[in-house]
């Protein structure tokens, strides 16, 4: 049990995928203008990350390893991720048309979110078992959601603040992200896995 807790803390805080490992920066900058959209995106990404982490583990363990074709892991993981994202898109379109409209192009773009493929490949590298990979994917998604929601809440405040004109828009966003990244570096050494 402690192991799973440690995995969660490690992925959410210490090795945060966005702010420490710099994976998945595209949606981090792209969907963080509004808090509500950021929450929707976090939910969708959490769903995709956890599911694709589990699915890719199953594909690797029960399909690629027994047939001795583990060199095909990258392309088969991309296939798995694309399917999971397509499925999520259909579910979101059916259940929440407004969220679907707000997320727009970023929903199908979860496919190219490098954190998703990164988690699947890191699971293999770390030789996680089934539950561990599920927790690893879930923790990575929680970390992504935490960073994205914090960042979008800050950007909403910055939007009404009196920012000097050369720093308006994306520039102040980049600086804020850099400062957040520095802040998260403070967790280094808290847990080591």
């Amino acid at each position, binding site marked *: 049990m402690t192991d799973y807790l440690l995995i969660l803390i490690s992925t959410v805080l210490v090795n945060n995928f966005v702010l420490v490992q710099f994976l998945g920066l595209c949606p981090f900058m792209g969907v963080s203008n509004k808090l509500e959209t950021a929450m929707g995106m976090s939910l969708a990404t959490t769903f995709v990350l956890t599911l694709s982490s589990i699915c890719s583990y199953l594909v690797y363990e029960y399909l*690629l390893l027994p047939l001795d074709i583990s060199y095909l892991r990258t392309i088969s993981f991309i*296939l*798995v991720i694309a399917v999971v994202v*397509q499925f999520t898109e*259909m579910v979101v379109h059916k259940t929440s048309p407004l969220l679907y409209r707000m997320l727009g192009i970023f929903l199908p773009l979860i496919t190219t979110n490098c954190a998703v493929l990164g988690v699947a490949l890191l699971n293999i590298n770390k030789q996680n078992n089934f539950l561990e990979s599920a927790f690893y994917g879930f923790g990575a998604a929680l970390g992504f959601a935490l960073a994205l929601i914090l960042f979008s809440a800050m950007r909403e405040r910055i939007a009404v603040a009196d920012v000097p004109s050369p720093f308006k828009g994306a520039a102040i966003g980049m600086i804020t992200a850099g400062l957040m990244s520095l802040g998260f570096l403070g967790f280094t050494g808290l847990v080591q896995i």
Partner: protein
Amino acid sequence: MDPILIAVLVLLAGALVFGALLGYASIRFKVEGNPIVDQIDALLPQTQCGQCSYPGCRPYAEAIANGEAINKCPPGGENTISALAALLDVEALPLDAEHGEEQSKSVAYIREEECIGCTKCIQACPVDAILGAAKQMHTVISAECTGCDLCVEPCPVDCIDMIPIATSLATWAWSRPQPGVQLIATDRGRHLAIQQHRERHDQQQADAAGTDADRGESA
């Protein structure tokens, strides 16, 4: 068996299985129509007046869902625009003057003694709120009338008036805050204030120096 053949077959089989899964999901989670159009349509005033240059409220709702501007509805006015802006998460714009101005809600009234029974207003009415037949006097069902004034133009004897609905206890409401008022505290104007203060200060000092010099000369 050839390892390359195995690899190709496995990928092919995987793609087929996933494709079948997605095919099933697309049938299971099929979206009927466009639900967002219904939500926009519910916010529009349903006058069917066509002032937005679309034939009715529903077509305009469909156009908004496809990215049309939300400020083309004069009967709805500022309230409709802000409600649409909140729904679609976009900036609320002032009403587009090209499509007419916001007017108080009114209702059509036919002066019945002048009506010649030509049925032209009945054909023009988008909501079937005018009752009558050929060579018979017409009248407006005021509960159904949306106040779109589309029937005023075709009337050959000009016997239709638009009567504004008087504000009653049931319909009165506080007016909305005027746009342009700062609702959030900000120090945006601070630099300007400091600059003005400094200029005034300099001016006063210059004036004082000037009067001193004058005095020195006279003495």
